[in-house]
């Protein structure tokens, strides 16, 4: 038990923002940049996402793949602290399968739904209701039957 307490000590890495108001500002800035980018690049448009998945237009694949490469480059250059990897667990692959199915049908991933709502796309309300219901359903299922940590 004592070991668990020491492990649970909240300890900030050097350079990381600790003030609650400044953290809010940094979170807002990240969110606005993400939403603006997703919208301007067309990840919030069903037609564009479908064109990506059917290989009719590889531009959005390019956004993702080059985004990963630039992110890797950025991590290598700046070496940010606090990047905890996600563990393997029995839900990793089944969850990704369900997410891929939902993404193909709705054209939206969790960040995209929010940007769509901001864009005033009324049908995104139905997707958002689905995402909320799915998240709550997963929590109920996990607490009742599943025995692993997902995040």
């Amino acid at each position, binding site marked *: 038990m004592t070991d668990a*307490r020491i492990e649970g*000590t*909240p300890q900030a890495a050097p350079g*990381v923002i600790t003030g609650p108001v400044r953290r*809010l500002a940094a*979170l*807002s800035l*990240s969110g606005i940049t*993400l*939403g*603006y980018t997703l*919208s301007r*690049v*067309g*990840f*919030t448009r*069903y*037609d564009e996402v*479908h064109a990506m998945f*059917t290989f009719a237009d590889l*531009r*959005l694949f*390019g956004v993702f793949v*080059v985004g*990963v490469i*630039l*992110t890797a480059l*950025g*991590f290598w250059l700046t070496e940010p*602290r*606090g*990047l*905890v990897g996600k*563990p*393997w667990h029995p839900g*990793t*692959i*089944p969850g*990704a*399968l369900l*997410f*891929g*199915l939902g993404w*193909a*049908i709705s054209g*939206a*991933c*969790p960040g995209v739904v*929010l940007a769509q709502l*901001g*864009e*005033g796309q009324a049908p995104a309300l*139905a997707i*958002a209701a*689905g*995402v909320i*219901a799915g*998240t709550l359903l*997963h929590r109920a299922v996990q607490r009742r039957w599943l025995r692993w940590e*997902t995040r």
Partner: protein
Amino acid sequence: MSYDRASHGMDPTLPPPDAHAALAPWWLDLLALPASGLWPFWAGALGLAVVAVGFPLLLGRPFGVSSAVGRALDPRKELALDRRDDEAPLGSGMIVAPARLPLPRAAARARDTWLANVVFLGSIALGGFVAAISSGTFGVSSYEGVYETLVARGPLGLVALFGGGLFVGFGTQLSGGCTSGHGLVGCARMQAPSIAATATFFGTGVLVSLLLAWVRA
């Protein structure tokens, strides 16, 4: 009004909209703004990378949208953790007993309050709002035309969107990440579980979309 790819000159079967395009070198197309007015791929990639790299530098924890969604929708647990953190704020180095709460490994990392997660999610919507207002597309739906042809129109189309959202919500929570956490960050760090999850959700997206296009064409 909907986003019609053909009327934007995006249909690959149509000839290029102006004759000069044929004279330009092929790579210029990659750098230029698409005819639809959307950003070219490199600008979007840069925007995503700025967030994925800047987020942990500023906040000391990995960037991920679905984990914020999970926390925002679990106010009871998160507000209880907020009260625990109030006793030993981030950076104080104080050791506190986890009170009555079990302290999972994940909660030991730098975390933000329930409200901060809600603000983060709201600001993604704000970013979409700014983009739509500045490009004059506010209130324009992309769920007409292609979506109605492929999936369904009217109330049935909305039911399908709800169902799709249900799979997205359940799947991302079960998998423990989405396009941001598994896709951008996990793949950039070459984490095996994240690469496998990303290959799976992109692969499933491709298969289901090709199937939809094949069945409904």
